[in-house]
């Protein structure tokens, strides 16, 4: 399985936020997207998910399900936690598992992975910010999707949870998954490819639209 992104461009609010982003991500590899605030990291992830319309370029997940687009084969883990406070932790997870299909773990197993196993039946309203984040993360564990799109996955997580996240990400990669993450965390376990979105990319959209502005991650020889 391989994620191939060619010449991806996106305009939001009349302003180009992404221009000519090109990269290839091999099976079992992670891509870390870095760059200053407002450069379009989140927009890139939302465009990959198909939540934002791409004005140009192509997105393909080679070796994936031909019937589905990239977003439909991806877990999107954004800033919003998508947690319903009135439902218990288990009910929150069970819903996404039934809605997405392809179950892998039970809600209890997924919650145990993120150290929330003893809070299964508590309403999510009582969770702290970090616990909410972990509950949201466990959503990625209850059903299988090959591509994970993670937007600042480590925000609000303590050091232990951050390490746990690294382990979960490494497991996902080992099972042949792919990860695109916008993060500043070191992610030491993964040996990721890197994509740096630079300021020059959107500085003056009228000067030169042809230069490939993102650096191409080196093809890894796995």
């Amino acid at each position: 399985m391989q994620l191939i992104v060619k010449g991806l461009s996106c305009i939001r609010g009349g302003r180009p936020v992404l221009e000519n982003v090109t990269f290839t991500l091999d099976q079992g590899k992670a891509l870390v997207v870095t760059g200053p605030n407002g450069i379009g990291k989140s927009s890139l992830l939302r465009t990959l998910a198909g939540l934002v319309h791409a004005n140009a370029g192509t997105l393909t997940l080679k070796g994936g399900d031909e019937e589905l687009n990239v977003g439909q084969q991806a877990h999107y883990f954004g800033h919003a936690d998508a947690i319903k406070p009135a439902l218990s932790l288990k009910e929150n997870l069970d819903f996404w598992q039934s809605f997405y299909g392809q179950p892998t773990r039970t809600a209890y197993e997924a919650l145990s992975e993120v150290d929330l196993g003893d809070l299964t039946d508590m309403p999510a309203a009582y969770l702290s910010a970090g616990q909410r984040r972990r509950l949201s993360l466990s959503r990625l564990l209850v059903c299988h999707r090959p591509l994970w799109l993670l937007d600042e996955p480590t925000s609000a997580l303590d050091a232990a949870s951050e390490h746990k996240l690294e382990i979960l990400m490494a497991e996902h990669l080992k099972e042949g998954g792919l990860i695109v993450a916008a993060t500043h965390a070191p992610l030491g376990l993964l040996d990721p490819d890197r994509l740096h979105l630079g300021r020059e990319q959107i500085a003056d959209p009228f000067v030169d639209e042809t230069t490939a502005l993102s650096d191409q991650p080196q093809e890894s020889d796995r």
Partner: protein
Amino acid sequence: MSAMAALFKREIQLSVRVGGGALMGVLFFLIVVTVFPFAVGPDLNLLARLGPAILWIGALLATLLGLDRLYQADQEDGSLDLLLLTDHPLEMVVLIKCTAQWVATGLPLVLAAPLLSLFLNLEPIGIAAVTATLLVGTPALTLIGSVGAALTVILRRGGLLLSILILPLTIPILIFGVSASIGAVTDPAPFTTPFYILCAISLLMLIIGPIASAAALRTAQE
């Protein structure tokens, strides 16, 4: 459990738990209808003539109450993004959400209508007629409201705009609903003709509502 059954179950759970609007609508309906006789005075014949109109206006306003949160709650906590990342048609998701919304807020109004009709001195045949028109008419109100809710999904305090947008569109439902109810008790006026037109409007909205709401939600996502 299939994806749509899971969605339906979640929507019902959310509306009957803390912060959900299931009971709110029917309580509001009760208050509005109870207040009317105090304003109209002790003229029982006048009350009986106004009865169907009072019940219909009460039902209309009560339906509007919870509608602004129909998609906004999911938009704010990020669930809406995740609901879009599947191959389930968005129109189907909208239809299920509307069905659950109607079961939680519209159906209680229909069930409460016979009881409240007694307050308004309606005769038994009139009570049956009002209840029947509410049963076939309130789904159309929910579906029209869904389009408004989808259009105002990203607006803070969109509830007011929602009312302004959709109240004019509900006028035909109000006209045929009330005239069918009056037709049942007044001799020359027919019951079936306006009742069938009301059914037709509901069926038409069953098609237009989900398609228009889904289109509005997709646009809002950009």
